[in-house]
């Protein structure tokens, strides 16, 4: 292709590489389908399995027995994968918590299980299901109270943040005291295979638990239990990095979010509870192939390319992102290693903007619910790729683990703890430079 361009408009070398955010998987798509395409280098059997996985991801489950898609419940949060990851993207913060939404609450009591993980709440497990098949009592209704605080930029501009505090109502049995609850919204599911393919040593190399370089930032890996291999492994997925693989993430979601038993997690989430009305005649309800297909799908969705990488404001924002310290945790670039069976995601240079590590984010964002190595103030750095397409894909701009932030500016201002210095730097910028940072994020 030849097009005459003015030389000054040519893409700068650093922008040229970051344009391929997902390496060879990258697609150039700016519509609501931006998170929903197969990796652009998928072919043959791998493309076919991706498409089978796409169908599995959209499957709507119903109460057994049924000729098609049986196994829902008996208690659940939602009835399909796509319902919590609309268009493979991010669920909004719900206006009504007890509708069929992409938000649920995890729960635990003080202490740890045999592997250092959270202790389930007796009678409720480690995830609260607010929906149920007809005739079964759901575990509880979700409830929330918001408090508002005003944060002010150094130039005097105020921003109102809303802080949700969640609790349970109408529990099917009395809730034990001292319960810790933590909210979660469904995050986007593209690019997960690439993150899984980053070699462990690359991630661990970024950790600095004792902050030996005294920069105030001390990324820490989460080490979690791999249920299939019965070993402790680096956690990569989930808001606190509690799952080591995409497979465990998917299998856990089938079981906990939808009440679908599967070869990986074959026991109903309500097992042993007095509201368990599932007589389990047919476990596992999901076959290995469907689980593998859905997992393969999440591993092989394309990453959308950034837009406007040459735009002057974006370039200023990109520079500021680095100078005010964001890039210390939102590490732009990684190289993937070899991922068995999926050459398309192997040996790729990618730009996810995450270090895949835990950081103390301060008490404002804290859920006060530890999970393996992650304490009640620590969260895993979220990848930022595709974040500017959130609105076109999902019709909203809700961010963070429960969607409390209503736009990117609010999301930045919630960053405390290790990120407090960067946030304070951001607050000291003038309106034009703040807009440039947001323009950069929106270009991703």
């Amino acid at each position, binding site marked *: 292709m030849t097009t005459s361009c003015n030389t000054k*408009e040519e893409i700068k070398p650093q922008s040229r590489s970051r344009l391929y955010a997902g390496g060879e998987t990258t697609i*150039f798509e700016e*519509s609501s389908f931006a998170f929903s395409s197969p990796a652009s280098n998928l072919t043959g059997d791998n493309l076919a399995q991706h498409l089978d996985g796409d169908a599995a991801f959209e499957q*709507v489950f119903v*109460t057994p027995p049924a000729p*098609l898609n049986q196994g829902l419940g008996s208690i659940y949060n939602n009835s399909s994968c796509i319902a919590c990851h609309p*268009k493979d993207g991010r669920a909004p913060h719900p206006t009504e918590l007890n509708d069929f939404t992409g938000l649920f609450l995890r729960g635990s009591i003080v202490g740890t299980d045999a592997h250092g993980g959270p202790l389930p709440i007796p009678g409720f497990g480690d995830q609260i299901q607010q929906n149920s098949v007809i*005739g079964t009592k759901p575990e509880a209704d979700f409830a929330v109270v918001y408090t508002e605080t005003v944060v002010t930029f150094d130039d005097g501009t105020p921003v109102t943040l809303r802080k949700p505090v969640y609790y349970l109502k109408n529990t099917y049995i009395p809730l034990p005291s001292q319960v810790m609850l933590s909210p979660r919204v469904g995050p986007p599911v593209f690019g997960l295979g690439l993150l899984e393919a980053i070699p462990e040593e690359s991630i661990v190399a970024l950790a600095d638990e004792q902050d030996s370089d005294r920069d105030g930032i001390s990324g820490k890996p989460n080490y979690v239990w791999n249920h299939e291999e019965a070993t402790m492994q680096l956690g990569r997925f989930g808001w606190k990095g509690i799952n080591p693989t995409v497979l465990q993430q998917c299998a856990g979601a089938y079981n906990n979010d939808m009440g679908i038993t599967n070869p990986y997690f074959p026991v109903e989430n309500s097992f042993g509870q007095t509201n368990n009305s599932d007589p389990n005649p047919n476990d596992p309800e999901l076959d290995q192939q469907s689980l593998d297909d859905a997992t393969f799908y999440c591993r092989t969705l394309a990453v959308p390319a950034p837009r406007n990488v040459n735009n002057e404001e974006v370039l200023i924002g990109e520079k500021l992102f680095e100078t005010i310290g964001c890039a210390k945790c939102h590490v732009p670039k990684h190289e993937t290693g070899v991922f068995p069976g999926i050459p398309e995601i192997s040996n790729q240079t990618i730009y996810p903007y995450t270090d895949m590590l835990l950081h103390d984010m301060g008490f404002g964002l804290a859920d006060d619910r530890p999970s393996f190595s992650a304490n009640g103030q620590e969260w895993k750095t979220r990848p930022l790729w595709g974040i500017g397409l959130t*609105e076109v894909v999902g019709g909203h701009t809700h961010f963070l683990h429960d969607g409390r932030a209503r736009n990117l500016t609010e999301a930045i201002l919630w960053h405390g703890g290790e990120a407090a210095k960067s946030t304070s730097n951001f607050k000291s910028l003038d309106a034009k430079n703040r807009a440039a940072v947001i323009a950069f994020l929106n270009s991703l």
Partner: protein
Amino acid sequence: MKTQLNWRNTTAIGLGLMAMTFTSCKKDSTETPTAKKSYSANISNIGTNVITQTYKELASKSAILYSEVVKLKDNQTASNLDIARGAWRDTRVPWEKSEGFLFGPVDTKGIDPAIDSWPVNKIDLDAVLAGSDALTESFIDALAGELKGFHTIEYLLWGGTGNKQVGDFTAREFEYLLSVTENLKNKTKILADSWDPAGENFVKNLTEAGTSSSIYLTEKSALQELVQGMIGIADEVANGKINDPLSQQDLSKEESQFSHNSKNDFANNVRSISNVYNGKFNVNGLGIYDVVKESDQNLADRLNDEINAAITAIDNIPGTFSDAVFNNQAAVNEAKDKITVIQTTLESEILPIINNL
């Protein structure tokens, strides 16, 4: 949401170069853009005269369906049951004609899963019918998508085997049917209002694409949305709606199985593609066709031929789709193949034109 394009003939690098060429020649927003052809009229026409009007028709047909169900409940005759069933089919037409543009409020407001989820959760439905809850519209509204919307209404009107008689209805079924059709009426009204300039005015994202829309920052992104929507439904009909029951010889995978409305569903899905492509619903206007013909008149016309051939192939399936899946597989395959041709043309010939604008 998938797309079946086999990229072997269009390497990722090639695509990247196209996109990069576009990006690298894009002026900074601070500069005056060079005179570039605007497709605002095409995008606006599709938004205003195709999408918004299709949803208006869906809302008005849903209101008629509700009123026919009211009449049926008040006067339980075989003839009123037939009229109500006809009203369901009539409502299904604009809905299927809208599935070529499953983006925006239908998706972000959760309306699609609330009105078109399937399979029907029969176990739960029976449990609700056997229970004693007052079956108000708000009670139904709070239920899962698999207990409301088109297919639950279809199941109640036709029954599981398709030979339900008016005398077979229980009082609870009528109560449920009334509220579930009222719920459909309300949901489709919300959907129509969300696009309507007099309502939430989502259509402004198309009429103002590339200017003040917060989601379509360029005209190209809006055109991509429209073409991807067409690709999405072509893929869904060929590889899902038709291929799943056919390849697995399993009628539980047929979507409109109780009413035997599948052939109409498929044809109206293809018409949905045609409407967006030609910018034509009740009136004629500019569409994607007019964008394509500037680059390639033959290609622009060929897609219309392919659309017509697909509709003909669907119409040529003898009898019901349920029967043809077993007894006329060649005709069903022919329809599937003809829809796949549309998908391939959109993906490998038309989308690249849009991406290179």
